[in-house]
């Protein structure tokens, strides 16, 4: 494909629009794709991610269900067992918990249980995390629950281009994908070309080159990390930023290469830190880059508290300042 100037080929779109387009294109491409959940039909989803799909593809391709998350997931398992590719929406992070048994005991295990005879090509879309002034139960960063569960792919985009490509990838996956959508970024704009070659699940990307330390982020923490790197650059510190995109599997290769090059790392994630994905990343890096690490791996995560009410949520979210403080802490004098 000939290179075209980005401005021509890639209009600015929101993450929400990119996701909507991915669902649209998947429905158009493959008649076995189904989209369902709560309010995803005529209403187009409370975040409008499924806007227009019922109108265009009909009630049999995109439809509302009774209000029961375990039912939605279980119904999807059955449909996937019988030739369909369900893409389902959990309305908010915390409401997926009532489907936890289905997700852990069936979605994650069916392929393994049957030695691959019954694979479940299904996608569970979960709007997650905070920063939108939501009341309790609407802002949980629940990715660790899924990432800890063997048998689930877990991905999360940080921009429109990845949102589109990752969701197309997820829908084509022969195995279940937990697709975590950072709510805060739904309205973030960026370039996206909807025909482009997909990166494939499991590939991290270096979002910004840098030599002094590596910031590792995913989802809505990526913009924070990038901003922090920008600010640090002004202070003469060169920070590299990795966007994981895929939590399961992790792209260890990219991760280790990055940290080995800089010798310092900060993991940035909004979820409460204890026994989290950030813990895993910190543990892996500490183990596998032991001899190149010039300072302990620092974590900038949410506190180990229930997600705060709107007026207090800014205290919980990783901020540029916190990231820079963590970077400052990386024992620069001693190196």
């Amino acid at each position, binding site marked *: 494909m000939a290179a075209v100037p980005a401005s021509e080929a890639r209009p600015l779109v929101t993450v929400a629009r990119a996701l909507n387009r991915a669902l649209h294109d998947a429905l158009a491409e493959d008649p076995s794709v189904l989209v369902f959940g709560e309010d995803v039909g005529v209403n187009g989803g409370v975040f409008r991610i499924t806007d227009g799909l019922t109108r265009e593809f009909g009630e049999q391709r995109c439809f*509302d269900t009774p209000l029961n998350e375990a039912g939605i997931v279980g119904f999807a398992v059955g449909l996937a067992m019988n030739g369909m590719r369900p893409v389902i929406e959990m309305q908010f992070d915390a409401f997926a918990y009532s489907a936890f048994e289905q997700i852990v005991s069936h979605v994650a295990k069916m392929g393994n249980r049957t030695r691959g005879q019954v694979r479940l090509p299904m996608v569970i879309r979960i709007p997650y995390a905070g920063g939108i002034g939501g009341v309790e139960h609407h802002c949980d960063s629940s990715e660790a629950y899924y990432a800890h569960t063997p048998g689930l792919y877990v991905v999360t985009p940080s921009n429109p281009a990845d949102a589109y490509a990752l969701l197309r990838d997820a829908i084509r996956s022969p195995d279940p994908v937990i697709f975590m959508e950072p709510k805060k970024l739904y309205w973030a704009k960026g370039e996206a070309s909807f025909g482009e070659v997909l990166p494939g699940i499991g590939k991290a990307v270096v979002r910004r080159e840098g030599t002094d330390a590596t910031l590792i982020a995913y989802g809505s923490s990526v913009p924070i990390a990038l901003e922090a790197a920008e600010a640090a650059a002004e202070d003469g510190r060169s920070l590299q930023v990795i966007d994981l995109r895929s939590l399961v599997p992790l792209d260890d290769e990219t991760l280790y290469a990055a940290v080995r090059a800089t010798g310092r790392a900060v993991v940035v994630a909004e979820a409460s830190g204890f026994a989290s994905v950030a813990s895993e990343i910190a543990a892996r890096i500490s183990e596998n880059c032991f001899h190149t690490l010039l300072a302990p791996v620092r974590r900038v995560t949410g506190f180990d508290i229930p997600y705060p009410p709107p007026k207090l949520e800014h205290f919980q979210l990783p901020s540029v300042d916190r990231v820079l403080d963590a970077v400052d802490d990386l024992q620069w004098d001693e190196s």
Partner: protein
Amino acid sequence: MTRRKPETLLPTATPICFIAADGSLAARSADEVPPVAELLKAMRGLVEARRFNKLASALVRQGRLAVYPSTHGQEACQVAAVQVLDADDWLFPTYRDTTAVVARGVDPAEALTLLKGDWHTGYDPHQYKVAPQATPLGTQLTHAAGVAYAAVLRHEPTVVMALCGDGATSEGEFHAALNFAAVFRAPVVFLVQNNGYAISVPLSRQTAAPSLAYKGIGYGVPGAIVDGNDVAALLHVLGEAVRQARAGGGPQLVEALTYRMEAHTNADDATRYRDAAEVKAWEPRDPLLRLETYLRATGALTDEIMAGFVADAEAIARRTRAELNRDVTPDPTDLFQHVFDTPTPQLAAEQRMLLDELARDAEGA
């Protein structure tokens, strides 16, 4: 356990109605209708609830509240559910039932804490015997059964009024709660406010049952269906349900047919999923208008009395608005102090970290 006869558990074919939409008597006789004093009390409650809904919706538009799920149109359910309770009974409300919470006596500003975003639950549940307003659908219903069963174990006469919507009846929690309450004969009245929608999803996508009240028999729970915009019928049916429950008759299921006149919340655009004509058709069935017409016809409600109700409602609205306009500066240490009774060493350290950060910011500023 003696199993009840199926016939005793089935609802009537049509909703119980005492006062027709036009305000005329629909009951077999005026004796069936609750006493005038009760109805006047309800009238006051309806006026206050309606006013509160108006106020809260205005506060959202003015940015004083983050979100408000209104009960405009459902006030009869809100008022009756609370009016039939004794002081020691418990109320289990959902996110939508702020007007019931306020009717129960919770300070309006405390009740709006959640929706204002200062904290989660803003009132002391034990003080008012009002559980936190529940957001995860149906999850409060098993709590209601547990609270009721604790009272049974201690031989206390408590009854629990547990609210949920039509959509929530589809959740597994509804199933668990009715079943636990029935098996343990816990005195819970489950009031389903069937307003026809779960956000955008109509009842037809929620159930294929003849009506939601038919869900009772599957648990051995008597089911009743009532006109949810007829506060007289609601007071009667819910009052009877509370009496039954208190007398050891176990849980009761009441489905109230009503309609949410506004969008799901201010964040919702109801025109995407329902016709203006449908909404319009519900206007003449308004619960306030209906009771007012009836009471005026009987002579029990005069202009003067009504003016008193309106004035009192205005006064509450004024006070509430004033309180809501006060800016509360939330204390970040609250985030760490209540996770456990005593913060863990890790939480104490996290709090220190945040306070240090704030101190540095303050210095820097």
